[in-house]
Every structure is written in structure tokens, then in C-alpha cells.
């Protein structure tokens, strides 16, 4: 495969004009565009060839092959390979006839939603695109992936192109007027991710008309380091007598597009509603203009699949998804408890973390697999960009591949062999990278030597074409308890690497207080000091009030928090007060009335006086019984039931912490899920919450869960109870199949079913042991069975 320079030659010489819509031309000629128009490449190739030819003669420099929907998934029932080859031949013949032009192979969405919203996996989608690329790569001049909505799917396509051909790659997504795709991807998230992956041209197409996209084009040009493509519709769609037309004529279209070219757009074309007349006028308008020079910008960006975070001011990196010093997290990693990772992610995000650290470093586990699993789980629930934290290059590569967006990699250090293993991965997947100022000799004691290592890292990054804006240096926090003099060296080093090397900086704050009393006092003050020395990324536990207060105050003083809006909202808000303040209550009453602060105070007081089991038996259990009774009577409702049971759980947690493990009450283990085909999970989540609050051990294996996965989970977890949920009548059939499979495997479990369409009779018909109309009824049943 030889690298094609034809696109670059064009881009250096002129404003590149692309073609207009294929569907619009076919529709005008009377073809049904609701069917697979790609098939026309085989059944009526002359028509397709003529359309390409007309666009070339109108002034297009590049034509897109008629292959937007030609993929192995959409054309599963057709001669997919034959269609692809015929489509390329149509474009090639047109180019030959016109005596000019380049052929760009056009790819669109595979046609079904990807995980986590849909069912197609990353690997499957990658394979679909790879199959196309392998067929087309020696027959075309470049690839384009266009009209995309899901950044994850676009990443699959780009990786398939990059890993299986040497051809240039253009990408464009469809945005709404706010600059988001239907799947929520922002312009900045797209630009940072795609640029990182090394696409040659990026931009937008379809979705809107030329008049609506001005602000979006500005954002594209601001953040992009590569040429920008703009290929809008001929205005907004108007439906009249069942026919769709667009409200901008060719003249207006060309005129508006000219403005964008003057702003810096170097590649233009038309999408839905445009035809050769639009392209002709457009080509005429731009032919005298020279392409704008691409200026490399200095924005340090990380992103998730939807949200981009610019490191232009201090940001919090949440440290909780990391087993170091955290027994529960370590156990969660060993148990592959993704639900726990997700909860930690949501809590940190809610408390202000803008990037989340993901570290699965527990001995004797398959770390690469765990990194993949945890990243998929976390990115499905929060929109924070992630930091892939590992010393294992294989784990880092796994994380980089399955991550949706532009991540931060933590870390390399001054050892050349470490950098040579990890930096190529950082380059390939386009991440930001953290460099630690240590090497085989350890952490230098003086500032100058730390700078030497930092400089070595920056220089090595340059060798791999990793720009300075994507480098973060961590000068390493040493504990005051052992290395008191090093604290200031760390801060001064931080300031100097930032000023002298122009990189971003990071520190793990909590290390400073290790082994000392009242750690939060030291941590919060050290955080403030580090921020004043220019720290960009603080790795902290964002859930701690002292850390939040230090950070919020710093942001207020630095004027990052404009008009102190966030500060005032957060700290002037009247803290939620218990409605029963001042009223004397028993612990039991405080649980029933969901007065958490009183319940906490009373519990803390009681455990100093009576046995823990006594608290549970005399206060918690009667309270839960009373809540259940009131719920059944209809004097208390589901939200109150949940709130009260949450307070009960909090009390139990406090009590448990004070009891020896062997004397703690153990309740049944329950596996819960929504059955295969059912994507609804609110009901399942409500039941899970109540069961957890009542002290059961609940293993949530998710929604739309395949039968085999349910069986595997029962084998591994050995639960006493399996709860299955279905909301739709159509998925009750899968519930039945799941129950049959459980029985066929001979598991001795109680099978409980629930969901809007279930009834006592349906439950019996499908073989369930029990139907529960709500979580309270289920708890009552389990307790009656002594579980």
C-alpha cells in the first residue's frame, strides 16, 4: 500500500470542492431513495456513473462513491462485495470520462446502535468497517466516514481505515444547532478525538443548512489542527404533499458557503437537497480563493464520547476508582463488580470531578481485561473524560482502544524503555500523556534533576509527534512524614516545568499526608498551595468536603467561577434540614420518617451503649416492618419507602462497622437483571435499591441480559434468589426462556419475576416461583422464607 498524496496535493493548491447529494439527484430522476440506492451501482451503473460525471463537470474535485449504506450489516442479504466494487467502478469511469477528479470511498453508520445504548459491540463494528476497507483500499484515493452521530462508531471506522490502509481519511458528523449530534457528541469532543486518531480532514455534514451552521463552523475552526470540511444540506427540510424539499437555493447556498471559506474552511460540498447546480455555483465562488493556512492551536483537550474538557484552568481528577489503599475497591475489582465502579464514578462526577482515574492494578488478575471492562462500564454512565492509569502497556492499549473519546494516559516516566513502549500507543490513539519525574534511579531529591527528567520526557514525546499541549508532568508528591523537605521541591518543580517546558501539570495530593494525623487538614492546604503554584490537574477524592472547599475557594479567588455563581449556589444554599429538627425521636422513628441526620446521631450514640445486634433487632427491623406495613396500607408510597430504607441501610452500615465480621447478620444473595431484549431498567433498579437497603447482597447484571450471561452469573455467584424483570409483553417470552434455562441447568434458586406486564398468572405460566408486584412484597416474601 502506497500513501496517496493526491488529497494533500489538492489541499495545498486550492479550496477543495466535493460533490453534492446522491439521493437528491436520484430522487429527481424518479428513483425510490427509501430502498438501498447502493444496489443501483450493480443494477443501473450508468445512472450512478452519470451523476458522478455531472458533479465532476460542475466543478467537484472529489466524488463520494455511492456506498453510504454499503456495509455487511445493511446489505447482509445482498452481494455486498459486488456492490462495493461496482460502486467504485462507477466513480472511476466517471473520473476517466471527465479527465479529472479523485474517488473517495464513502462510509456511513453501520445501521444499528452500538453498545452501551444498543447491541453491536465495538469489535463487531470494527470488523464490519475493516471488511469494507480491505475491499476498497487499493481501488480508491481516500476514505470518508460521514453523517455520523456516535463518536464510538466513528472511532471504529477510523481505526479500521488506519489499521488496514495507508489512504487519507476524512470524517464528518451531523450536528444540531447547539453543536451536538443525536448521540450527544459535542463538536469539541469530536475534534479532539478524531484529531488524536490522526484523521486528515474533519468537519460536519448534513443535519442543518448553510445558514444555521455559522457558530458550529467557528468552533470547528477554533479547535481543529487539520483542514475543516463543511458539507451542509440545502437548508432545512420542508415537507409538502408528502415530498421533502429544502429552503435554500443554489445561489444563496454558494454565497453563504463562501463566507465559511473566508473564515478558514478548506473543503466544501453539499449534502441533502443539493445537486449539480449548487456545486457549480459553489465551485465558481471559491475557485479564485487560496486555501487558508492551518495554524496549530494550543488547546489541551481530553474528552469522553460526548463532553470535552479543556485543561485551561485547575481541574479535579477523581481518584476513587483505584485500589491503592482501598480494600472495598480492591475486592470490587476481584469480584468484577462493575456496578461498584459505576457508583464511584457517578458520586465523584456529582461532586465536581471533571476527569476520572481508572486503575485496576490488583495482583493476579487479567488487568487488560479489567481495564477494558471498567472503562466500558464507567463511560456508559458518566460523561467525564477518563484517565487510564496503569504501568502495564497491554492494559493501557486495551484501555485506549475501547475508550470513547480522547483520554489521558497515566503514565510514562524518565525510563527510555518505558517511554518506548507506551508513547507509540499514546500517539496511535491520540491521548494526552502524564510523565512522572522519576527514572531508574528513583525520584531525584533536587529540583534540577526532576526538570532534567521532565525535559527528557518532553523530548521523547516530540520524537513520537506528541505535541507539547498533550503532555502533563507530575513532579510527584512525597509524604511529609518521611520527606518533609521534598514538599516544597515538588511545588517549585511544578512551577518550573510549567513555565520552562510549557506543559500541563498534575499531582496526587493525598500522598502528602500519609502516616500523619488529621490528613484532610494537610491535604486541603497542600492542594491550595499546589494550585497557587500552577497545578492544572489535582488527583484527589472529590467527595471530601475539605477538598471541595479548598478547590471551590481557589476557583472563586482566581475568577474561574464567574461572579462566584457556583460558590454562592453551593455554599449559600440552606442545607437540607431535617423536618423533625428539634423534635425528640427514637431511632426507629427517625428511620420511618427518613430523618437521616437524626438517625445517624442516634446510632452513633447507641453503639456506645448497646450491642449492635440489639440495635438491628430492636430498632431497624421494627422500623422496616412498619414501613412495609404503611406501604401496603397505602399511607406511604414508593419514594418514601426507598428513602426510609436508605436511612435503615445507613444505620446498618454504621452498626456493621462496629461489629466483628462473624457476628454480622448475613442475608440472601440475589442476582437481578432485565431479561434479554428489554432495555428498560428503572423498575429493576428500584427493586435492587430496596433489596440493598434491606441488607441483601445484590448482584446486578444489567439490562437486556442474554440467557447465557444469567446462567454464568448463577454459576459464579451461587445466589439463593434470581430476580428477572420485563416491561414489555414481547420480552416476557425471553423471560420464559431464561427461566427454562435456569431450571435445565438444575440450579436450586428461587426465581422471582416482576415488571409492568407481569401478573400472578403469567408468572405461573412461564414457570417462575414467585411474582412480586413491588419491592416491598418481595422483601416480605423473602423474609417469610427466612432469607
Amino acid at each position, binding site marked *: 500500500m502506497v500513501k496517496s498524496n493526491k488529497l494533500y496535493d489538492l489541499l495545498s493548491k486550492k479550496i477543495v470542492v466535493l460533490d453534492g447529494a446522491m439521493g437528491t439527484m436520484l430522487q429527481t430522476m424518479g428513483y425510490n431513495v*427509501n430502498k438501498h440506492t447502493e444496489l443501483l451501482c450493480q443494477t443501473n451503473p450508468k445512472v450512478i456513473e452519470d451523476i458522478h460525471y455531472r458533479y465532476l463537470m460542475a466543478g467537484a474535485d472529489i466524488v463520494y462513491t455511492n456506498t453510504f449504506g454499503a456495509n455487511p450489516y445493511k446489505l447482509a442479504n445482498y452481494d455486498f462485495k459486488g456492490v462495493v466494487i461496482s460502486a467504485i467502478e462507477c466513480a472511476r469511469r466517471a473520473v476517466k470520462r471527465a479527465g479529472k477528479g479523485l474517488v473517495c470511498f464513502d462510509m456511513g453508520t453501520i445501521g*444499528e*446502535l452500538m453498545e452501551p*445504548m*444498543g*447491541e453491536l459491540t465495538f469489535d463487531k463494528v470494527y470488523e464490519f468497517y475493516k471488511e469494507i476497507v480491505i475491499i476498497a483500499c487499493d481501488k480508491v484515493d481516500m476514505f470518508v466516514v460521514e*453523517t455520523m*452521530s456516535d463518536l464510538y462508531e466513528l472511532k471504529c471506522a477510523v481505526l479500521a481505515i488506519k489499521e488496514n490502509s495507508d489512504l487519507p481519511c476524512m470524517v464528518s458528523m451531523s450536528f*444540531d444547532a*447547539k453543536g*451536538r*449530534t*443525536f*448521540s*450527544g457528541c459535542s463538536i469539541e469532543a469530536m475534534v479532539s478525538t478524531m484529531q488524536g486518531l490522526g484523521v486528515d480532514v474533519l468537519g460536519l455534514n*448534513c443535519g442543518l443548512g448553510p445558514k444555521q451552521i455559522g457558530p458550529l463552523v467557528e468552533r470547528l475552526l477554533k479547535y481543529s489542527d487539520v483542514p475543516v470540511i463543511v458539507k451542509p444540506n440545502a437548508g432545512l*427540510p420542508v*415537507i409538502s404533499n*408528502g415530498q421533502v424539499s429544502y429552503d435554500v437555493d443554489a445561489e444563496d447556498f454558494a454565497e453563504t458557503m463562501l463566507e465559511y471559506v473566508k473564515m478558514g474552511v478548506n473543503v466544501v460540498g453539499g449534502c441533502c437537497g443539493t445537486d449539480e447546480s449548487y456545486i457549480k455555483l459553489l465551485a465558481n465562488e471559491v475557485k479564485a480563493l487560496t486555501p487558508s493556512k492551518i495554524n496549530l492551536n494550543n488547546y489541551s483537550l481530553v474528552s469522553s464520547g460526548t463532553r470535552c474538557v479543556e485543561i485551561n484552568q485547575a481541574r479535579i481528577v477523581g481518584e476513587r476508582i483505584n485500589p491503592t489503599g482501598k480494600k472495598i475497591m480492591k475486592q470490587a475489582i476481584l469480584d468484577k463488580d462493575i*456496578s461498584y465502579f*459505576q*457508583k464511584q464514578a*457517578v*458520586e465523584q*462526577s*456529582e461532586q465536581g470531578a471533571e476527569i476520572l482515574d481508572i486503575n485496576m492494578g490488583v495482583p493476579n488478575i487479567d488487568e487488560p481485561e479489567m481495564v477494558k471492562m471498567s472503562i466500558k462500564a464507567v463511560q*456508559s*454512565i*458518566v*460523561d467525564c473524560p477518563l484517565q487510564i492509569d496503569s504501568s502495564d502497556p497491554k492494559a493501557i492499549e486495551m484501555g485506549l482502544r475501547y475508550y470513547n473519546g480522547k483520554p489521558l494516559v497515566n503514565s510514562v516516566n524518565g525510563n527510555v524503555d518505558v517511554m518506548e513502549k507506551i508513547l507509540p500507543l499514546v500517539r496511535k490513539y491520540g491521548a494526552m500523556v502524564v510523565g512522572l519525574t522519576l527514572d531508574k534511579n528513583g525520584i531525584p531529591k533536587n529540583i534540577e534533576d526532576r526538570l532534567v527528567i521532565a525535559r527528557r520526557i518532553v523530548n521523547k514525546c516530540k520524537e513520537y509527534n506528541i505535541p507539547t499541549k498533550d503532555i502533563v508532568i507530575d513532579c510527584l508528591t512525597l509524604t511529609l512524614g518521611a520527606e518533609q523537605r521534598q514538599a516544597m521541591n515538588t511545588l517549585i518543580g511544578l512551577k518550573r516545568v510549567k513555565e520552562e517546558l510549557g506543559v500541563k501539570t498534575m499531582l496526587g495530593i493525598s500522598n502528602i499526608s500519609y502516616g500523619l494525623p488529621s490528613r484532610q487538614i494537610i491535604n486541603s492546604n497542600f492542594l491550595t498551595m499546589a494550585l497557587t503554584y500552577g497545578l492544572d490537574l489535582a488527583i484527589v477524592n472529590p467527595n471530601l468536603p475539605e477538598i471541595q472547599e479548598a478547590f471551590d475557594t481557589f476557583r472563586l479567588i482566581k475568577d474561574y467561577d464567574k461572579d462566584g455563581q457556583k460558590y454562592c449556589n453551593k455554599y449559600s444554599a440552606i442545607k437540607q434540614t431535617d*423536618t423533625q429538627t428539634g423534635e425528640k425521636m427514637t431511632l426507629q422513628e427517625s428511620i420511618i420518617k427518613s430523618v437521616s441526620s437524626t438517625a445517624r446521631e442516634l446510632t452513633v450514640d447507641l453503639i456506645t451503649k448497646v450491642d449492635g445486634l440489639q440495635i438491628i433487632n430492636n430498632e431497624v427491623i421494627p422500623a422496616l416492618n412498619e414501613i412495609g406495613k404503611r406501604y401496603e396500607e*397505602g399511607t406511604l*408510597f*414508593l*419514594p418514601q419507602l*426507598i*428513602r426510609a430504607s*436508605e436511612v435503615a441501610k445507613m444505620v446498618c452500615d454504621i452498626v456493621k462497622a462496629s461489629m466483628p465480621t462473624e457476628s454480622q447478620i448475613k442475608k440472601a444473595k440475589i442476582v437481578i437483571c432485565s431479561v434479554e*431484549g*428489554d*432495555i*428498560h*431498567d*428503572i423498575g429493576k*433498579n*428500584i427493586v435492587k*435499591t430496596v433489596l440493598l437497603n434491606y441488607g441483601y447482597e445484590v448482584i446486578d447484571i444489567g439490562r*437486556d441480559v442474554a440467557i447465557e450471561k444469567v446462567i454464568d452469573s448463577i454459576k459464579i455467584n451461587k445466589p439463593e434468589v434470581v430476580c428477572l424483570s420485563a416491561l*414489555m*409483553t*414481547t*420480552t416476557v417470552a425471553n423471560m420464559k426462556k431464561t427461566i427454562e434455562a435456569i431450571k435445565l441447568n438444575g440450579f436450586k434458586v428461587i426465581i422471582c419475576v416482576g415488571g*409492568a*406486564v407481569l*401478573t400472578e398468572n403469567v408468572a405461573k405460566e412461564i414457570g417462575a416461583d414467585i411474582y412480586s*408486584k413491588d419491592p416491598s412484597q418481595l422483601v416480605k416474601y423473602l423474609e417469610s422464607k427466612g432469607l
Partner: protein
Amino acid sequence: MDNFEEIDYKEVSHYLKMPKLSDEDIVLFDSVKKLLLDIAEPKIIARMENCEIVDGFYYLPELGLHLKSNDVNKYFVNVEKIGVVAATIGVAVDRKIAFYSKIDMVKAMVLDAMSNVLVENLVDNWEYKMHNEYPDYEFCMRYSCGYGDLSIEMQPQIIKALNATKLIGISVCKSNMMIPQKSISAFLGLTKTKNKDEKIDICQLCALQGKCTTKCRRALQNGKIK
């Protein structure tokens, strides 16, 4: 009428099976409403088409949709036009419900229930516009696939006929459920001969007839339940 953002707390509490709201509940509802209106991306696509009877069932030739349902025939009396609509409040709402399910189940439940009301508002607004555009017609109740004997397997056809994936971002998964989850597709029958006073007992169509504990919104609006 453009009441999209007017979320009726009575309807929300109805979904939550909460017959009365405390002051604390109202505070929670207000904060969830603010959040929801901030993240919702309402989008709607609709077509009003002439229909004909083919093989005993309503057929929309322009869209190629065939409503093979005896229940539809029962409630779409002498219908001449059928409106087809798909609406969504976007994927960010689904994500936020999942987000709060991890740390605040009550908030997640309220957000879920309120989102149902919001997406219904969107379609109500469209229906109201149709009433103004077609003043000479009587309107049959809105009818969705999966209801009565109108198969949910029709869902992908509706979404494809309206080009709703490309235009408003609704996809259909293998089990024919729509993504984003807070989406609606529906048919609206227009007739010139229907008796205005005719009351439709929509509960008669429902698979949960006689066992219903959830009580759907339409039944609430029609005064079938309180």
C-alpha cells in the same frame, strides 16, 4: 397551545403512584423539572396522510404503512386521514436517569416519570396543532404499536417511513423498543363521520385489562381513573 414545558405534577405523581405530594416532594419535583428542561432535546417528525382500506385494514400508500389491527379498525371509525408521528426528548435524558439510579433512586424515579410526561406533552402539542389545521375533522384517540393487537413489530417500519433515525435520532433495537427510551411513535385517525359524543373505553384494548395497577396516562386524561 405550547405547553411543552408545563409539566403537570399530578400526572407525574400518577406515574409514581403517589396520590398526594408533600412540600418536600414539591421541592424535589421542582429541582428535577429544572434539570429535565435543561437536558431535554425535544424533536418531533410527523406526516398527515390519506389512507385507504387494503385487505380490510387501513393502509397509508405514501408511507407504505399497513395497520393490520382489528383494534385500530374498531377505534378508527371511517377514518380518512391518518397522522403518523414520532417524537423524542433525546438520549441525554436516558443517561441522566441511569446516572441518578446509581446514587439517588428517588430522584431517578421522579426524573423517569417526569420525562414520560414531557414527551407526551410534545406529542400533545402536535396533536393540538392538527386540530387547528384540520378543523373539519373529528379526531380518534392516538394509537401506538404494541397497544391492543397492533404489533410492536411495526415500530421499525414507522421509524423508517418517517426517516426518524436520520431526522430526529430515534433508533429501534432488536426487541422493537425505541432508543432514546423517552420516545413515542403514534397514529392519529381523522374522520368526518365519527360521533363527537362517543366515549372510547381504551382500557378494553389493554393487555392488562382487569389487572392494571399502573393506570396509564390516557386513561387518567379520559377520566377512566382518578
